[in-house]
C-alpha cells in the first residue's frame, strides 16, 4: 500500500461538470463522482428532492500521491467553492495499488 492524500469535495450537482473539468486541468490522476448527496451546511438543508438538482449535492473523491498536484488541486478547488459554497477535505490514506 502506498501513502497518498484522499481529497473529498462536496459541491452542488449543477457544478459537477465544471469541477470535473477543473480537476482534469489541475492534474488530478482521476476522480470518483458520487451523485445524489444530501445534507446540511452554511446554505441550509439540501434534501436532493428537486427537479433542477439545485438542492442536490454530489461528492468527488480523488486519490493523489503527488504533493505538488495535491496543492494545485486544493488551491483550484478553493477558488471554485469560495464562490459557490461547498466542502473540501484532505486526509491521509493508503492506496492499494494493483
Amino acid at each position, binding site marked *: 500500500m502506498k501513502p497518498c492524500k484522499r481529497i473529498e469535495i462536496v459541491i452542488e450537482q*449543477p457544478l459537477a461538470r465544471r469541477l470535473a473539468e477543473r480537476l482534469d486541468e489541475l492534474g488530478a490522476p482521476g476522480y470518483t463522482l458520487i451523485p445524489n448527496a444530501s445534507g446540511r451546511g452554511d446554505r441550509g438543508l439540501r434534501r436532493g*428532492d*428537486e427537479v433542477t438538482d439545485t438542492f442536490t449535492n454530489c461528492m468527488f473523491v480523488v486519490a493523489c500521491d503527488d504533493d505538488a498536484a495535491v496543492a494545485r488541486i486544493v488551491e483550484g478547488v478553493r477558488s471554485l467553492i469560495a464562490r*459557490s459554497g461547498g466542502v473540501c477535505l484532505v486526509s491521509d490514506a493508503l492506496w492499494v495499488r494493483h
Partner: protein
Amino acid sequence: MDSLFLVNLGSPPLLFFFLGAAAALVRSDLEIPAPVAKFLSLYLLFAIGFKGGVALSGGALDGRDWAGLIAALGLACAVPLYGFLLLRRRLGAADAAALAATYGSISAVTFVTATSYLDSNDIDWGGHLVAAMALMESPAIIIGILLYRLYGEKQRDGEEGAIDWRELGRESCLNGSVFLIVGSMVIGWVTGARGMTALSPFVGDLFTGMLCLFLLDMGIVAARRLRDLRRGNMGLPPGTGVGFLFGFAILFPLFNAAVAGTLGWLLALPEGDALLLTVLGASASYIAVPAALRLALPEANPSLYLPMSLAVTFPFNLLVGIPLYHQIIRSLVAA
C-alpha cells in the same frame, strides 16, 4: 370572484397539490421518485409545447397576437430591471440579481396549470402564448447576470468569477426546458392536425392526470421548503428575515400581474390570452433559472431565490393568483 375561486379550488390539479403538501406536513413517507418527477416535468413541457405548436399551425398570427408576443418579451426584460433596483436596497448584488432573474423569468408549470384552468372553464387561448412563454424564459437570466456584472464585484476576463459568456448563452437559451418547449412547438407546428391525431391520447387525454401527479410532487417539495424556512433551516443571508421573503414573494408578483394585466387590457387581448400573459408576468421560475444561475452566478444563495419562487409564489399563484387575475380581467373585458 367567489365562484371562480371555488372552481379553481375544486380542480383536481390544485387538490393534488394540496394532497402533496398535506403529505409533507403530516410527515407521510409519500415520495415521488426524483427520476419520475423529472420525467413528469419533461412530459408537461413536451405536451404544452406540442399543443401550442399545433394551435399555431392553424392560422397565421394577427397584429394583436404579435403585440402580445412583444409585450411578453418587454415584460421579461423590464421585470428584472425594476426588480433589481428594488432588491438592491436590501440585498447584495448577487442575491438581488438572482432574485430579479427568478421573478423576471416564468414558471412553465404555473402556465400549464393556467391553461388547464382555462380548458376546464371552456375559455379559448392562443397557441402563440406558448411561444411567449418560451420567449420569456431566458432574457431575465442574461439581464440578471449583466446587472450583477454592472453593480457587483468586478472581475476581468479570465479571472475566477469572470463570466463565461458562451456558457451563459448556452445555459440561458439552450437549457433543457427551453430547448424542449421550443423543439416540441416546432414539431407541433410542422405536423399540425396530423401530428395531433397521432399524439392525441398522450398529449391530450393524459395531460391533466400527469399534471396532477407533478403537482402532487410540487406540493410535497413546496411544503418541505416552507417547513425548512420556518425552522431557519434554509441558510438565508444575514439580515434577511422570513417576513421580507414572504412579503416580496407575494407583493412583487401581484405588482407584475398588474403590469401584465394592464398591458393585456391596453392591447385588447382576448380573455384567455390576457390571463395567460398575466400569469406569465406574475410567475417566477423554479426550474430553468435556478439551474442556469448555479452555473452563471454561483455567488447567489439558492436558499433565497428557490424557496421564494417554489414555496411561496408558486402556491400563491395556483391558489389565489389565477382566479384573482381572471376575475379582474373578466371585469375589465366586460367594462
